[in-house]
């Protein structure tokens, strides 16, 4: 990919979006037969599945918590999900993402209801275009709710960043690669608290605050789509 001269032209981004605009977002709940809960998310060119299994028996046994369930997350990218072929299996990047994803989701779960058990969240990225971890968290939150796991709220996630000096919402690949800053954020929308925050690049304090505001706004929109996806699964279709 060649670096474009400008990422922002006349206030519009390369794909025509305004700086505070999300990519098209589609979420569907209950898409996999075998999983206890599942969701499919398309965010721009990202295509991500999440599946939840459990609470189920924890193996190995010595990983059991006597007074609560354990949340396990596994983020993985399909070998064909990126321009170069990604070697299958976990690498350092995906292991870190798995960890921060778990930490982003844990605060909303009533894990204490299921001593000694495990809740497994599997995230599979089929097509990647920046923001896969945030798309994965959005999918995982819906999949957890779809599995009937008791939770205080959903978790919504989006990346914010900076290109050509402007704070933007929901970076796509070119902006992630050639922009100044990338900051994925996850929040619990009802309580307006942050459960995932990472950043690389450069922000002034003002920019940081502005970026957080933008992330909260973006998450509100995502939250609404997540809630709709869960309700839609049980919507009575016409003619039934």
């Amino acid at each position: 990919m060649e670096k474009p001269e400008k990422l922002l032209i006349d206030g519009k981004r390369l794909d025509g979006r305004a700086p505070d605009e999300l990519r098209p977002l589609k979420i569907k709940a209950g898409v996999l037969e075998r999983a206890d809960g599942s969701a499919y998310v398309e965010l721009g060119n990202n295509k991500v599945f999440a599946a939840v299994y459990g609470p189920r028996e924890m193996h190995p046994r010595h990983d059991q918590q006597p007074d609560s369930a354990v949340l396990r997350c596994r983020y993985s990218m399909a070998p064909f999900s990126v321009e170069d072929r990604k070697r299958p299996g976990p690498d350092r990047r995906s292991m870190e993402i798995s960890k921060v994803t778990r930490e982003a989701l844990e605060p909303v779960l009533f894990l204490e209801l299921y001593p000694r058990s495990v809740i497994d969240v599997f995230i599979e990225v089929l097509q990647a275009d920046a923001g896969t971890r945030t798309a994965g968290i959005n999918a995982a939150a819906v999949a957890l709710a779809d599995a009937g796991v008791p939770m205080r709220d959903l978790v919504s996630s989006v990346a914010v960043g900076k290109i050509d000096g402007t704070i933007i919402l929901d970076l796509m690949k070119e902006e992630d690669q050639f922009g100044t800053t990338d900051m994925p954020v996850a929040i619990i929308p009802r309580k307006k608290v942050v459960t995932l925050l990472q950043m690389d690049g450069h922000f002034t304090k003002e920019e940081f605050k502005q970026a957080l505001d933008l992330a909260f706004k973006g998450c509100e929109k995502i939250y609404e789509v997540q809630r709709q996806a869960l309700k839609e699964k049980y919507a009575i279709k016409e003619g039934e």
Partner: protein
Amino acid sequence: MDEIISCVKRDYIIDLVKQGKRVDGRALDQMREAVVEKGLIKTANGSAKVKLGKTQVLVGVKLMHAEPFPDTPESGVLIVNAELLPLASPTFEPGPPRVEAIELARVIDRGIRESDAIDLDKLGIKSGEDVWSVFIDIDVLDHDGGLIDAAALASIAALTDVKPPKDEDWKLPEFPLSKLPVAVTVAKIDDRLVVDPCLDEERVMDARLTITTIEDGSICAIQKGGRGYFTREELEQAYDLASSKAMELREKLR
């Protein structure tokens, strides 16, 4: 860990097969409905998703530069890899590929390689140094049985979807695919043959036979699995089933 099937269910499935019936209401020689969707993944050169009943498999094909094997310095390389994602079944666990995943990939590989479906000789770039490598990556998304058939169909569908890479070393007008190998699995349950076993049937079957055929009905790969056995007559019957069902499935590739 394999799933333990309850005796009640086992007896029920076997009993049905004895009467020429199946748990999901199909005839013994009836496939589940196969739905093929192509071109879903932009980051792949070719891709396809196959739904076979409730089983879902997604295959992405990537064309990459690679070093040739020393004995075929001018030929392209074919690599098939399968991932039994833990997302797809409560019994799949993260970790190195299990023998089932390896078998799955190798059966698909043989079907494509042995039928000469891809003309690998046309995929050389610079003798001994640089050739095109065709990576077929199989992602199993939802496992309700019949993974080999679903993955084989998705693989060949993804190959028909391959668009030439934007690369100055690519000289061919199109991807050199000349045949359409299709795998069909026949299971043996209580001495009866059933085509395309679903997961419950796979758990009670004595054995399975996967036969991969090309357009003219000739066979390019066979794989027997399971502890049971097949008689001579059963093998012929299985071939008749597999080749006729392959014809039906091949229609879905258009």
